[in-house]
């Protein structure tokens, strides 16, 4: 057994062993690891496209690795949902620094946006773009939609107004109008908390809650205006304005006419 002992004590034994182990692990992995599918190739392609777009349009502020600069925040861990929201509503890429970035015309196709989203998602785990059934109000009962109203009043209306008409916030910031916002973007905003908005986790507001809220906002803004014209839709401010303009103004004109009419005009 001297031969084996000599071999073990040979100077090259340890490196050789290491190489053998590596070979075994490598071969083992190639057997155990799943075959690379064509989908994955597409994914990789998408990520590469996204990276190209990202490097071109986003990296000047967010950094080449999405680590953030003095101009823009870090994107590590924001998830695909954040990208889909910011780019899908035209807020990103930003034209200039503002108190708050407004929603603008979207200049990217949904494929391009999803490519960037997929690339940004590789920086770190974050909320994903919701599937259609996560945001669709299909199948919700009236009571559940009404519950969505209660949730909206409790969590959203303090900034977004009573049915999502928007509201003012300090220093030129504002909570935007939600009446034209799609369900996907509402979901993404809830999960990622863009700009001034707080982030609501799935433990605080479940996916079912978000669906109910989306359904409520949709229904509340598509129902007929019971009671007549909303006249500016600014609550008591516009009501008081019209009470003076139409009520006092109109009746003062009538009063002028009545006072002018007299027995004197014969």
């Amino acid at each position, binding site marked *: 057994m001297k031969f084996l002992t000599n071999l073990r004590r040979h100077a090259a034994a340890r490196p050789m062993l290491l190489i053998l182990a590596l070979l075994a692990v490598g071969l083992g992995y190639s057997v155990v690891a799943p075959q690379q599918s064509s989908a994955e190739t597409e994914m990789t392609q998408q990520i590469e496209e996204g990276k190209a777009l990202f490097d071109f349009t986003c990296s000047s502020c967010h950094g080449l690795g999405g680590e953030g600069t003095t101009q823009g925040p870090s994107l590590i861990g924001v998830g695909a949902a954040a990208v889909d929201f910011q780019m899908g509503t035209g807020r990103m890429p930003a034209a200039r620094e503002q108190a708050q970035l407004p929603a603008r015309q979207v200049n990217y196709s949904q494929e391009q946006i999803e490519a960037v989203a997929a690339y940004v998602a590789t920086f770190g785990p974050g909320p994903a773009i919701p599937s259609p059934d996560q945001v669709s109000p299909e199948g919700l009962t009236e009571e559940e*939609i009404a519950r969505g109203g209660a949730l909206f009043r*409790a969590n959203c209306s303090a900034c977004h107004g*009573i049915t999502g008409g928007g*509201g003012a916030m300090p220093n030129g910031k504002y909570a935007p109008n939600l009446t034209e916002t799609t369900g996907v973007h509402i979901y993404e905003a809830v999960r990622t908390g863009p700009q001034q908005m707080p982030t609501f986790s799935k433990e605080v507001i479940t996916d079912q809650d978000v669906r109910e809220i989306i359904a409520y906002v949709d229904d509340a803004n598509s129902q007929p205006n019971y*009671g007549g014209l*909303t006249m500016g839709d600014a609550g008591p401010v516009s009501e008081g304005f*019209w009470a003076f303009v139409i*009520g006092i103004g109109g*009746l003062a004109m009538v*009063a002028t006419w009545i006072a002018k009419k007299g027995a004197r005009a014969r």
Partner: protein
Amino acid sequence: MATPTRVAESSPAVEADRAPASKPKEMHGVAKWADERIGIAKIGKFGLRKVFPDHWSFLLGEIALYSFIILLLTGVFLTIWFKPSMAEIEYDGSYQLLKGMPVSEAFASTLDISFDVRGGLLVRQIHHWAALLFVAAATVHMLRVFFTGAFRKPREVNWLIGVGLLSLSLIAGFAGYSLPDDLLSGTGLRFVDGLIRSIPIIGTWAEFFVFGGEYPGSILIPRLYMVHILLVPGILLGLISAHLALVVYHKHTQYPGAGRTENNVVGYPLFPIYMAKAGGFFFIVFGFLVLMGGFFQINPVWLYGPYDPAKVTAGSQPDWYMGWVEGAIRIIPAMEWHIAGTTWTWSVFLPGVGLMGVLFVGLGLWPFIESWITGDKREHHLLDRPRNAPTRTALGVAGMTCYGMFWLSGGNDIIATRFNLDLNAITLFMRVAVFVAPVIAFIITKRIALSLQRADRERVLHGSEDGMIVRSPEGGYSEAHLPVSKEEEFLLTQHLQHKVLEQGHDTDARGVQRKKGGVGRLQARLSRWYLGHDIPKATASEIEAAHNHGAHGEVEGSHGAPELDGDGTGATPHHSADEDAHSGSTAG
């Protein structure tokens, strides 16, 4: 300047009838029956011949009166369906977006009125619009009375009743819009809860007294209901009756004009002319409110949802008449003291409780303050033209401006979102504007009023141009002036101009010894500030001189007016150096 419009010499309605030669016809039938029992002939003779003067601004108070009547009518309808209870039930009505929600009975019954009672939403909206219009018309009516000086002796008491009516109407309105127990009105109640608690030392106790325990409690809606449908309307009804009875007793004021004196009222009798006018106006006001209730949505409580003290929505505002207090609270910087275990929240107490107190106490005292400053103790039945009381007019406009600035602050978030402005910038601007804007408004208004006085004086002395430019043989151009009509001359010169009170004078205007001490230093200084800038109106001798002086119809201005120096006294081209220069240049 335009020539004055012609006024008919007389009319059958204003001419006195010749006394009938025969005895008046005896009454028959129902009229006789009623007269024998309740004496309608005497009442009718007094009431139906009562004369009211004609002016559109005299109808502003009527808008308030009619809105009040419409409020009573629609309010009765609403009480049939409304349940003033804070008991929690599950909503099970027609409005789907609240289905199954836990709501108070008050809120559920408001939704039922809106969606399940036939015509309920229309009546609810008429009621709310009428409430806004009632307070608006009362406010505008008060401004009319203020700017025309109708509050002066002998009407100070009626002015005080009016101030009481206005303050009570705010309470009535507030109690009313809190009843539906929706999220917006509940936020308003929370606001008032804060106001009550901000009263130093007794605040918490007062809150517990009003709410029957800690906010919001469970008895507030029934209490507000009592206040809204019984207590305040009852007092309002009594005060309105007194208000109108005093109008009858004092007789209506009238604007100055030819034939109108302090001892008569020129206008039309109640029957038939004013009955038709006022009655017709009632139906027009009612029609306006029905149209507004029918076409314009107001207070959509179904969107606001049920009240929950934990919730508040962006864009919460009170109805317009509380908006200025809201605005004051929004813009005031935080100020709070803690003394010996008590909290003194000045930033709520001062703008909320303090400002409302200042407004209503100030309004109430104003007739007495003004008569003290001017020393004017006579009766007035002829109204002031606002220009002839420039300081009062300027003060009024300054007050309105201040109110308006607070008002705008109350809508600062709406302004920020609608006009893309910075909320903090609006707040900072308003903090300055509530102090500066009234001063600017005061100065501008006073300048305008004095300019109008100057223009009046010039018109009396100067007349109006006749529109024909005449070229003289020397080449000069001139335009002859026509004297104004006697009626216009009267209108422009009829007003009283009070003398500035001098310090230490212990006799009144007629030389009678005052009982108590003479004019003090403060009174004299205020009097000089208040009256000292008036442009002396044209006197009879000045007008006489002006008429005689004009060789070419040109009317010469007075030389006795100390305030008028050259620019105000009319052109003097016929014997001035520049006329020589003028003819010289054209001749050359």
